[in-house]
């Protein structure tokens, strides 16, 4: 069963309408934040897929779309080979029994007025009917045990503020597990946690993946942790997935200039002490998502940008076993010579 696709995004697109201002009211030109544009990927059982990208690149939006918390603008979300669109009510509950989400901030995702018991009880009851008494207690205990909060009695009647960040995130995970989901969408599950605690939570997730064969979408802005934790990694830039593939390949042999920039920018203790020259990073900022630049969205910052990059959106180019990048540099039709990835180096 490991490896089968449970949840897939097919050309998922989300545009948030923007309030029109002033004169635009008259011209009636609809405007929207192109938060996510034509994103496709698969989540497989027992497989962690990382989604990496800088702030505002649309990672959370993808997660929320997959959780059906937002309606899609276009595209499909395919659950177990069935395109699914749910809004609320029964079908929504049936959907989220399969697909559960973990939020970035464990300090904010647990209601401060409710005990851990309440949170977990609700998770059980919503998806398993009115469990009561013994059965409920057993359910609660097993949930907490699954996230290594033992002994369970010590945590059940605490309020969120009485727990540490790592413990809270574990509770949030336990709550998600309450539904017995097949897919976990983890939106930056550790970025708000202390460095020393992060690892514990990530290891827990990995453990769950292995034991429960969950399909996990791991969203992060820390590409190093993607390398450590995820099987496959996708890189997002300005609402689009620009590179994807096996984590090791993506991090060690980045193909897209943006990925390369990202990896060069990540802090690296070795750099200072190995005499690696400090890098000059690409100038500029991510583009406006309201009127994204035509063509490749990274083109305005890209040192290799050619004319074509500014006019045509690059499709995915396969670069090898499951590795792909959306960059014209890899279009064999335009360039005879396949640019060696390691030669693509900014600055120099």
């Amino acid at each position: 069963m490991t490896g089968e696709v449970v949840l897939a995004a097919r050309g998922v697109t989300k545009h948030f309408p923007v309030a029109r201002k002033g004169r635009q009211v008259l011209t009636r030109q609809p405007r929207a934040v192109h938060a996510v544009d034509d994103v496709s990927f698969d989540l497989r059982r027992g497989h962690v897929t990382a989604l990496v990208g800088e702030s505002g690149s649309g990672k959370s939006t993808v997660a929320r779309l997959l959780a059906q918390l937002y309606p899609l603008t276009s595209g499909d979300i395919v659950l177990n080979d069935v395109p699914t669109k749910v809004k609320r009510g029964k079908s929504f509950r049936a959907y989220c029994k399969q697909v559960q989400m973990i939020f970035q901030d464990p300090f904010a995702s647990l209601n401060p007025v409710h005990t851990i018991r309440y949170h977990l009880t609700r998770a059980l009851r919503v998806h398993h009917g009115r469990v009561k008494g013994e059965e409920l207690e057993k359910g609660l205990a097993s949930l907490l045990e699954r996230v290594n909060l033992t002994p369970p009695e010590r945590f059940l009647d605490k309020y969120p503020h009485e727990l540490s960040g790592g413990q809270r995130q574990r509770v949030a995970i336990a709550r998600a597990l309450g539904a017995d989901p097949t897919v976990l969408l983890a939106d930056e599950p550790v970025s708000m946690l202390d460095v020393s605690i992060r690892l514990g939570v990530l290891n827990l997730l990995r453990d769950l993946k292995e034991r429960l064969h969950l399909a996990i979408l791991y969203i992060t802005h820390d590409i190093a942790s993607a390398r450590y934790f995820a099987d496959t990694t996708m890189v997002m830039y300005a609402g689009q997935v620009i590179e994807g593939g096996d984590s090791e390949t993506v991090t060690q042999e980045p193909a897209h200039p943006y990925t390369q920039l990202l990896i060069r920018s990540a802090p690296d203790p070795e750099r200072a002490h190995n005499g690696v020259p400090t890098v000059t990073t690409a100038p500029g900022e991510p583009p406006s998502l309201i009127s994204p630049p035509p063509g490749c969205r990274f083109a305005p910052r890209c040192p290799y940008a050619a004319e074509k990059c500014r006019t045509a959106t690059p499709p995915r180019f396969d670069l090898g076993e499951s590795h792909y990048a959306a960059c014209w540099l890899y279009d064999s039709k335009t360039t005879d010579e396949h640019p060696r990835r390691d030669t693509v180096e900014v600055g120099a």
Partner: protein
Amino acid sequence: MTPVLEIRDLSVDYGQGEGAVHAVSSVNLVLNRGEVLGLAGESGSGKSTLAYAMTRLLPPPGIITGGEVLHHGRDKPAPVDVLGLSPKQLRSFRWNDIAIVFQGAMNSLNPVSTVASQLEDIYRAHRPEMSRAQRTKRSAELLRLVGISADRLGSYPHQLSGGMRQRVMIAMALALDPEIIIMDEPTTALDVVMQRQILEQMMRLREELGFSVLFITHDISLLVEFSDRIAIMYAGRIVEQAASEDMYRASSHPYSKGLLGSFPALHGPRRPLTGIPGSPPDMRSVPSGCPFHPRCPSAFDVCEREIPVLEKLSGTNGDSSRSVACWLNTPSLSGHPGVGAT
């Protein structure tokens, strides 16, 4: 290496009496002229408190309960104790000698006044002799220094992106050409590309202007890359201090080791991550003895009872700047008679 700032036995409490939180306890730290001193530690370990205490900017109910902060002025004969300054002296000391770039740069700018007015405020307070035109000119220069075009002077903070705001803060810190700049997690809210841009710029400016930096962050790999020396804090105390290379290659304190082992590396072999078990202590009830002992894999009986002192460690390559507060590193431990009144 001449010290520019010397912190001696500094202790800070939040609140008084029974419920007081001892956020910083007897910290000794020296910042040398021209160096970047990194300060790392988990959230709540007292890094910001230490930084604010040096300039007496703690929010109530923070109280400095002991110690000295000696500033060796560039052209002052004797060091002055910042903690003993009168409000007037303190005001003139601030920004002239120590500037701070705060943790939440997003909120460090007054939302209702322009960048220019916030920059010029500094000159109006510290350089009253400057003319209006001079002030404007200087402000424009500062912005250019951090890579922002001068026509942004009239902008309000909300009109700037996060990165720009952080740069404005850095420009502001440079306004009076201070000897020391404290940077309290200046880039946590930014993404890695922007973070690198800003830090590299900062390092270039340091090269040019020669100020010292106290660089606070919990991202130890960042520290290793950018600072000369690193001090690690845990539960309000410095537990280890070393040149950054030493710290990276061979840290001695179990906590430092754990911290370093919590960062996945992007390059090189996929080394296993150890992490640190347990969770940071509640500062209201810090464990007795070495505060780290409940989480320490190699704790033994003394650790539970006595607080280790920060002791010089003959470094691997004879570097004397290295010190650590851990009983493991005390060879004479067997000679210790157990508990002594401290």
